[in-house]
């Protein structure tokens, strides 16, 4: 009896401790998410009759979404963008940077600081900065470099739009990847490497059989964070291309924005946002389950 009372008092105390975090979470995250689900089942709009008198349309927006070629195109573009920039670009370069920093070579601190610099520029500022480098015409930085090398130049954001956007996002995310992976590397006990060395393991074997397996939880945690955050990248892509040319860089976040705030269809845009939320959740669950990472 006394134990039960103690347990209940402890639970109430825990709840009181959690309340400061739970209230903003409920008001700023859970309620808007639920409201988006409701909104996605209406024809709510920013203008026209639907703005004055929105009506319930059930799953109509979802049916329309799944028959919209631009929506499927945005999912494909998002897939390429996430795989290219978060999973391949940021991870590979971030991992190399983390390994390089671990070796304490000359200038590694300068290298570490330099690789973190892209995070100092806000998304939109970084976007406009890159426009000046990738724009058409022979005055753009990249074109000048190509001309100096005697190579042909192009309007890079028109000719290779998705590749360029992916490259810029890779540039921007390397620092975060490097920090997370450096933390993971520093958690690998040095004794394991010493034992392996005494057993005659070469650097490649140590990397494949010690570093990678012991880093797996960190790598998967990084993958989870970077995948979900890259799916929601908006400012950088919008500043660079606005989703163009011809939808070639219209990632899901830009698609949702265009539907909601360029075509003014809030309900339809909300349906896109709900699908993006479900995709992000599914990916998160898949990552966590695949290695039983404790998050």
């Amino acid at each position, binding site marked *: 009896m006394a134990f039960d009372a103690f347990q209940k008092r402890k639970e109430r105390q825990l709840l009181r401790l959690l309340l400061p975090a739970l209230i903003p979470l409920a008001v700023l995250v859970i309620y808007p998410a639920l409201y988006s689900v409701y909104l996605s089942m209406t024809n709510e709009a920013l203008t026209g009759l639907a703005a004055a008198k929105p009506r319930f349309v059930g799953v109509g927006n979802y049916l329309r979404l799944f028959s919209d070629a631009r929506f499927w195109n945005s999912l494909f573009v998002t897939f390429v963008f996430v795989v290219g920039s978060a999973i391949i670009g940021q991870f590979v370069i971030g991992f190399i940077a983390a390994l390089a920093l671990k070796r304490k070579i000359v200038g590694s601190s300068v290298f570490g600081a330099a690789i973190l610099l892209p995070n100092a520029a806000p998304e939109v500022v970084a976007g406009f900065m890159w426009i000046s480098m990738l724009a058409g015409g022979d005055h753009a930085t990249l074109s000048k470099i190509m001309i100096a090398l005697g190579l042909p130049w192009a309007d890079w954001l028109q000719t290779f739009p998705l590749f360029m956007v992916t490259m810029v996002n890779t540039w921007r995310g390397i620092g975060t990847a490097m920090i997370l992976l450096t933390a993971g590397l520093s958690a690998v006990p040095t004794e394991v490497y010493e034992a392996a060395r005494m057993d005659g393991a070469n650097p490649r074997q140590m990397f494949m059989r010690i570093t990678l397996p012991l880093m797996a939880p960190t790598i998967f945690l990084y993958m989870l964070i970077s995948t979900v955050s890259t799916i929601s990248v908006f400012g950088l892509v919008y500043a660079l291309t606005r989703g*163009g040319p011809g939808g070639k860089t219209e990632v899901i976040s830009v698609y949702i924005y265009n539907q909601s705030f360029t*075509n003014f269809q809030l309900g339809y845009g909300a349906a896109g946002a709900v699908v993006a939320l479900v995709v992000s959740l599914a990916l998160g669950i898949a990552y966590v389950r695949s290695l039983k990472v404790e998050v």
Partner: protein
Amino acid sequence: MNRLIAGGLAAIAMSLLASTANAETLRVALHGQAGIDAFTPTAERIEKELGVTVEIVEYPAPDKDYMTKLLTELAAGNAPDLFSIPGASDVADMVAAGYLAPVGAELAAWPGYKDFVDVAKQLAVSPDGETYVMPYILGIQQIYFRRDVLEKAGISTEQPKSWADLLDRAKEIKAKTGAYGLLFPAGTSWGGGAFAEGFSHLIIGSSTPQIVTDDGKFDLNGKGVLDVFQFYKDLIDNDLMPVDPLLGPEPWVIPKYEMFPKGELAATTCGSWCYIFDWGRESKNPIPDVTTVVGTWADPGQESGEFVLAGLGAPWAVNAKSANLELAKKALLETGSVDNQIETAARIGNIPSSNAVQADPRFQALTELVPIQAAANHGTYLKQATGMSAVSEGVARATEALLRKETDAAGAQAILVDYVKQTLGDEAVK
């Protein structure tokens, strides 16, 4: 302690006074430096005549971004008291949403309105029969061509008689000069321009010149719409129109501000503003002696006829939920003054709606615009209806598919019809 309390009370009193002062402040939304410069003298006149403070709030410059911010604020109930609407095709939808205050009675009682050309007054009337906007300037659109480029190549500068004639002229330009022969704005990046500055030029001369039926539905399945998209397709397939720039984020910049002044694009649809803002004295890349070097053709009809497209140029409107509704309506009348019309015409190049400007020496000095203003009443225009924004977006999507060579004319028409049906409901399309 007493000082602290006294200080606090003083702060509260000052904030109350500030609130009272705010009740006499009119917030005005504007975008683009040229628009702000043109309106500033009018703002000063409003302040002087109405005894209020006019706060000009600068909004994002591209029309689409401006509308996004304005509509979001209107929906949230915190929009400015007075604002201009860059795309006249958005007016009917804003009326349906309940954002605009009716001003028909005020305009009827205002002496200056009787001098407005009939076409401006007709364009200002919404589908419900009420007037919600001040139609102070008009956009008079035609096809503008590089007379010097054509004459040098020995190509006729005579008015084309039909679409086929226009297309042949564009092919001849391409063959003899290498320049692109003709541009009709297209694609989603151009926003409302794909409809208002492109599609509209052709549909008014087609076999179905109006797309709004008497009962307010959209007639988009007709042959006229199909033929318009076929015209686009012919331009694109024959490489007569610069396609790549139209798929970029600011599609007007390269063709209008770079290619046309260089003579790399020989003809394009445009409005009277091109003589002032795009290539004239207010341009960053002006064409010397622009009115001689650049000529105009009326839009030819599909088989015959000539059309000059008239539309409202960024009409002013009053926020229906304005805390200063009566003051805002009085300020709206000042936006229709001859002074504001002339100042806007001088900065941007739109055509004043009032015939009274013809007697004003300041307007007579705008020699590029005087003959266009005199002819403004002969302009042709498209009937408006609630849902026009969706048609505009549908046209942008359909023409983008043509630009990307993903479909033919019939496919483009299907994209337009499907988009409008999905957005407004099946019953909205005839």
